[in-house]
């Protein structure tokens, strides 16, 4: 089960700064831990997060092994026009989740 939670306003005025909060369910296994038998647990993390606003990239984050499980990423952008924001999480072992959210600007 891959799960994400996106929280942002559904509606905004033109030029308004909006806050977007995202949570993604992911173990973020660092690749430095070992099992009880001494075997290294392979790294399994989200590598990149991208947010696009009507196809234009407005926010990007590179993630690293020291970031906690179920990473919370919060950022701001300027509401310019009505349309769709798309969110993409890409990681190890083919992890890829895409989610979209509509916004009305008037």
């Amino acid at each position, binding site marked *: *089960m891959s*799960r994400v939670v996106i*929280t942002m306003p559904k509606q905004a005025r033109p030029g308004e700064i909006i806050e977007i909060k995202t*949570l993604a369910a992911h*173990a*973020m296994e660092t690749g430095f831990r070992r099992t009880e038998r001494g075997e290294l647990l392979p790294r399994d993390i989200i590598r990149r997060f991208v947010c696009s606003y009507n196809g234009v990239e407005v926010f990007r984050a590179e993630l690293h092994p020291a970031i906690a499980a179920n990473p*919370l990423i919060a950022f701001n952008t300027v509401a310019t026009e009505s349309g769709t924001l798309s969110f993409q999480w890409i990681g190890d072992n083919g992890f890829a989740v895409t989610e979209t959210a509509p916004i009305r600007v008037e």
Partner: protein
Amino acid sequence: MSARSGCLVLAAAAGAVLQFTHAAEIAPAERRSGYEYMGRDTRLMQDDDATNPGMLWVLDGETLWKRKAGAAERSCQDCHGEAPASMRGVAARYPAFDAARGALVNLEQRINACRSERQKAEPFKYESRELLALTVYVGLQSRGLPIAPTIDEKTRPFLDAGDKFFHLRQGQINLSCAQCHDDNAGHRLAGTPIPQGHPTGYPLYRLEWQSVGSLQRRLRNCLFGMRAQSYEFGAPQLVELELYLMWRARDMKIETPAVRP
């Protein structure tokens, strides 16, 4: 100052730091949820559903609630309807007496009983993502409601057993739950505040675990720290202790899914 009075002063000072005598229970007005011992950041994380990682488990739980399972091809919803209505206040009443089994069951065991008897499906493993998700989802429906386990002639013996367990000195360091959580709550153990130990927000997201975990996981952690005999998940001793803790926290508000450091 004579040597003798010096000794008395020292003894008094030691007594003020660690009280090993059996102090009275915490008065109802003095009770504090673990929430109040947390830093501002962690409190904000719990308060906002947009940042509370426990909500990821809530979403999984909602999916499982509606999914048909087992040989009976039945979902939780097929019997119970919409969870916000039918499960309101349920988590606040558990652990409860199960007449069919003649035993005390906690919420996880109740869910698994439904699963094997009504859905004819394999019960979930303790601490599995599925069982935690369903328990959190059911727990969320009681958020803000007062904890109110039923204490009657059926549950009284289990409550007494849990009470006894809470005050029993055990393990290699000969410590009881009460010595930390009644007598020394609010003091610090190493750098960490000792909370009063009220199970208001379980299952909860612990930053240390990087995951949601059950009350029994927390209890087993404590027993491990006390270097005492641990019990398997679902053991009667742990369920009785759960009942005692819920009774001890009666009328406090449910916070599920809580966040703790």
